């Protein structure tokens, strides 16, 4: 390439960036950075994540914005699409921290993107708050700038493993997405189950694959008493309908979003009856903060609240609380405020440990015959049908 053209190219690019950079925090606004997936296979969970962020932003602004050093700043979000790709994530993080100069970045869905994003947050001294990725190792890279509000795979698995062992559902089988969520979930569960607990079958399927007949045949032949599904609502509903249609006499065990009315709408009470699942956010739990959030969410989006939305809502609220406590839009001060913060969120108390990991409660809910859920775990929050 000739030098002349390289120069014009760089000039054009720089001009474009200057235009984009005009949106940075100035006047009465605080612009916070968001990483999510707006396209690609992770776009569906990405929408719930964005709903949570948007709701939190609007509530903050309706309440007059965030007070920082005597000024009230309106909250704006700068959203970039990482499509679950580490390189896209790194570029987005670089752009948020050095062009948009946001004081804090939130979000992301894919555990594979975070290791590419986190070092850039560290280099540019901007805290990064995860609200969905569940890879347990993400908060163990000795990076002081990384925080996570949601429970990771090992924490989720622990809650359910005690329960599975107690009810003696053995041997157990797994059907899981062949991605970070699915494989990580299986791994977390295997580690949490008691030593030597028999696992009859582990079947992985690609994201987008929807025919479970091969797995069902293998599970039938393996003699498993229970099947645990590590996937989200869409394939989950298909797997359950196919397992039920095949007449497999197994206990169904589900994951995050499978204890919800949205999930019920995809299937029916009869097929879900008796299924248990872990859940970070039972939308109907008789807990005032959860019910209030569910109501506000329904009023805004006309649908049942989703766990990813609740976690992301909490993430933005924690960031706002940290900015308020720091009294500054400086990343390092916000980081220090986050490390000390105790925030009563929708999903529970958010307080980060030394690794930046919060420890929200994890629930286990069970489907009742009438299409409602009961809460089985944690014991102090246990409640009958209609609560979960």
């Amino acid at each position, binding site marked *: 390439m000739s030098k002349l053209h390289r120069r014009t190219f760089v000039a054009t690019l720089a001009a474009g960036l200057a235009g984009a950079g005009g949106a940075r925090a100035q006047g009465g606004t605080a612009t916070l950075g968001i990483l999510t997936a707006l396209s690609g296979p992770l776009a569906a969970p990405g929408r719930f994540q964005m709903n949570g962020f948007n709701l939190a932003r609007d509530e903050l602004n309706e309440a007059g914005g965030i007070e920082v050093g005597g000024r009230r700043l309106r909250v704006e979000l700068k959203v970039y699409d990482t499509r679950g790709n*580490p390189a896209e994530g790194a570029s987005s993080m*670089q752009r948020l921290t050095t062009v948009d100069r946001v004081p804090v970045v939130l979000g992301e869905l894919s555990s594979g993107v975070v290791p590419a994003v986190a070092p850039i947050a560290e280099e540019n001294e901007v805290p990064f708050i995860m609200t969905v990725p569940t890879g347990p190792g993400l908060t163990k890279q000795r990076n002081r700038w990384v925080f996570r509000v949601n429970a990771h795979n090992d924490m989720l698995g622990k809650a359910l493993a005690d329960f599975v062992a107690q009810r003696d559902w053995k041997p157990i089988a797994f059907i899981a997405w062949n991605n970070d969520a699915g494989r990580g979930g299986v791994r977390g569960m295997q580690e949490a189950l008691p030593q030597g607990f028999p696992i009859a079958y582990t079947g992985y399927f690609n994201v987008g694959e929807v025919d479970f007949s091969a797995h069902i045949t293998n599970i039938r032949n393996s003699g498993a008493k229970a099947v645990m599904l590590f996937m989200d609502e869409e394939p989950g509903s298909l797997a359950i309908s196919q397992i039920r249609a095949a007449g497999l006499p197994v206990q169904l065990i589900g994951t995050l979003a499978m204890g919800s009315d949205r999930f019920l709408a995809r299937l029916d009470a009869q097929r879900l009856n008796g299924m248990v699942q872990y859940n970070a956010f039972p939308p109907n739990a008789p807990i005032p903060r959860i019910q209030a959030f569910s109501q506000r969410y329904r009023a805004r989006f006309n649908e049942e609240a989703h766990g990813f939305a609740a976690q992301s809502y909490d993430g933005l609220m924690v960031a706002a609380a940290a900015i308020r406590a720091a009294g500054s839009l400086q990343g390092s001060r916000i980081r220090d405020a986050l490390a000390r913060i105790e925030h009563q969120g929708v999903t529970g108390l958010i307080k980060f440990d030394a690794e930046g990991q919060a420890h929200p409660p994890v629930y286990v809910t069970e489907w009742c015959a009438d299409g409602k859920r009961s809460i089985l775990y944690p014991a102090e929050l246990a409640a009958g049908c209609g609560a979960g």
Partner: protein
Amino acid sequence: MSRMAVLAFCLAVPALVWGIAQGGLPPYLLHILALACTYAIPAIGLNIMLGYAGLVCLGHAAFVGLGAYTLGILAVDHGWSFWGALPLAAVVAGVAGGALGAVTLRLRTHFFMIATLAFGLVLHAVMNNWEELTRGPVGLPGIPRPEGFTLLGLDFAFRRLPDFAAFAVGATAVAFAISALLIRSDFGRMLVAIRQDETLAAAKGVNVTAGKVLAFAIGAAIAGAGGAVKAAFLRVSAPASFEYLEGINLVLIVIIGGAGRLSGPLLGALLFVALPEYLRVAAEWRLVFFGVALVMLMRFAPEGLAGILARVFRRRAAAA
């Protein structure tokens, strides 16, 4: 390349690298530049296969992945330095490329495309499924940037973004120089002869198979080195970076830039990386735009950007 051009290249590149390392450029621009380099290096390798030898390989991302994981596993699990692992990354990918070439090159165009696509899909599955070695879909985190060293009394460092961007540009220049020397050599002329008329080349005594296998091995080795640079840049090696769509992206880069032209992969990588970044505001529409641009280019300017530029220059020269 004329002697003047070689001289200009040898002077301009160190000057450019030095200029970038001074750190005057905005970090985001440096980041995009380094990212473009991580695409340009594998694309330079692919251009040797696709542009000069005429082999449309749809699984090129697998070679990039082999390099990235070689560096990742050696550096993270076995404490190797980047400089020790880099040649090995190139060798591992090159051997894999030579082996794939040896078994698939007798296939005709479509079969060859499908076989290379299948190879890419298999390697992606291995990266994703062999958790004991690769850590699975979450990826191998914590890959270090290249270590600094002192040479001829000068300190070289690579951890900071400006330094790494300078390193990436330098590495791209080296890959470019290798491909330029190769193409201008007897070997390069042999490849072009094979692409133009395989039967005639064979009749004239050219060992067609050996030539193609070697082109494949060299292209893959350059891709493997590019993979190591990419892993060191992103500091993680995850299967998502090497899925089959990334392999197709590399083909698009070479074609858009101009296959069979030395500057093609560089132009293509800059456009491929910078244009979506520039259009970032448009979210999913940016990919639609990119697809439309690609189809239009195929329709109206299949010789790629390098071809268009060459045409413009020629016309201007003729007018003057």
